[in-house]
């Protein structure tokens, strides 16, 4: 029996309550100041509905793109040798380390009509002005959310891929499976829980993202306004009740995602120990 259980658990619960649980409870307290009808009206107003569709749709798209490219990056980093591999491996975490505001202004400038990339993708609008197709559009938001979600899939898949017992693949080859069959029937099923976890993590992160999106998105209500920006707009107008109501919707979605991610990770771990045993 080691000492310190009461002290450390006590402090943990105290700090958790003070910093996280009590303030989070305030959201539910504040939203209860609205009547159910008011609450429902707020969370289903057209501007909110448009923001959910945009946020969910683009987050899903970005997470899917990351699913494919993240798997390729993880595969290449684990299985192949090439010049600059260590650098690429370290850089994968850049979206974690780079502050979102920096990412936001960088992507906005890079994809603007005069930017390094944006200049090649322009069109002329109804006012005869040249515009970047990324600016004030879903495409721009998609680019930003792909950027911030990039490390999640790579970093969940990479360790699992590294731990796959070479003998499994050798066994499959010796049984006559070709390379694609080995990948498709042996490796991919083992990676599935990790891929799903990474996907859910990237998706969850994209839903709440703010800093990297606002500069490129233009934040036009009903068109390119993501839900966090809508909350911010309500706050700027001192509409605390409405901001809170929309926040409750997002929190509930986040909690459901958090739970499914925990279940997925539990599944990944079990799957993994099972393979090693």
């Amino acid at each position: 029996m080691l000492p310190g259980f009461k002290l450390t658990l006590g402090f943990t619960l105290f700090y958790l309550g003070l910093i996280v649980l009590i303030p989070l409870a305030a959201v539910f307290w504040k939203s209860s100041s609205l009547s159910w009808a008011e609450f429902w009206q707020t969370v289903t107003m057209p501007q909110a509905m448009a923001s959910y569709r945009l946020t969910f749709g683009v987050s899903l798209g970005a997470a899917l793109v990351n699913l494919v490219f993240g798997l390729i990056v993880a595969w290449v980093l684990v299985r192949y040798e090439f010049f600059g591999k260590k650098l690429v491996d370290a850089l994968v975490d850049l979206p974690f380390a780079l502050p979102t505001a920096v990412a936001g202004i960088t992507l906005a400038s890079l994809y603007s009509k005069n930017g390094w990339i944006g200049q090649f993708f322009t069109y002329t609008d109804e006012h005869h002005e040249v515009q970047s197709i990324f600016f004030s559009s879903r495409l721009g938001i998609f680019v930003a959310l792909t950027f911030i979600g990039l490390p999640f899939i790579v970093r969940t898949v990479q360790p699992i891929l590294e731990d796959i017992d070479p003998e499994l693949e050798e066994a499959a080859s010796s049984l006559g499976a070709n390379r694609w069959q080995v990948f498709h029937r042996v490796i991919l099923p083992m990676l599935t829980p990790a891929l799903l976890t990474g996907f859910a993590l990237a998706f969850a992160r994209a839903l709440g993202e703010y800093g990297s999106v606002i500069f490129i998105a233009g934040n036009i209500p009903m068109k390119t306004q993501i839900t966090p920006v809508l909350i911010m707009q309500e706050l700027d107008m001192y509409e605390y009740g409405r901001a809170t109501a929309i926040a409750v919707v997002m929190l509930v979605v986040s909690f459901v995602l958090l739970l499914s991610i925990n279940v997925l990770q539990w599944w990944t771990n079990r799957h993994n120990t099972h393979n090693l045993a």
Partner: protein
Amino acid sequence: MTPAGTTLHVPHHPARRHTRSEPPYVRRLLIGTALTFIGLFLILPLLFVFTQAFAKGIGFYFHSIDEPMAWSAIKLTLLAAGISVPLNCVFGVCAAWAIAKFDFYGKNVLLTLIDLPFSVSPVIAGLIYVLVFGTQGWLGLYLNADHPALPWLANWLNDHNFKIIYAVPGIVLATIFVTFPFVARELIPLMQAQGRSEEEAARVLGASGWQVFWRVTLPNIKWGLLYGVILCNARAMGEFGAVSVVSGKIRGQTNTIPLHIEALYDDYNFTGAFAVASLLALLALVTLGLKTWVEHKNAAVLDK
């Protein structure tokens, strides 16, 4: 919900390449795809920050950083990180000790609750503190109540015009919230993997609780702790959404570096914005470098 890149990992199997390789054209295609993706999404933006920062020459660059508003933002950012990182460090060590070294009911619930801040949008992280401490919030309503339970406290706070929201304390609180799980999330799996027997051995040999911690546990977790601190610090210095809700954005007073960058950008001072942004980009590169170094160190320790 763990940001996937935040756990130390060492592969179990050295790759046996010759029997497990694809045809050269497939390999080249995959490497090419991966490098293009990384180049487009990571390397190009990084280069862009530094090119833009120096677009008007080195003189303008230093002028953008060496001015009172920038300095005030840097000081505030250092203050927020300086308070939130040590606090979350102490919390992380306590939580990891309780969870890894003891068995108790509700451990999984506790683990999920510790992860909560990762799954909350930064904007909502700011909002919750406004709801607690703002003029319309719990504390605000208390201060304006006709008969506060602790009149001396209410009076003192009112007399000294002590503000939390749209002031420095709110910024610090929001930063603590968004960086809350980093150290704990790093230490818990590490300490669970290391087990309890070294600590038990130290106990049987007569060591006190503190001696066990300082002489046995801490040396074993130091790399993991450093790793968590590095990530925690990067997030603390770079947080934007949560801080932007609670700060009020008063230039020279409640602007952190990211908020200062936003302000410059909104003023169409792009070069100035990127000059200051280059500081944070540099911090990100240092973070990645340190992170790689710690992973390398940790792998060496495990290999020994």
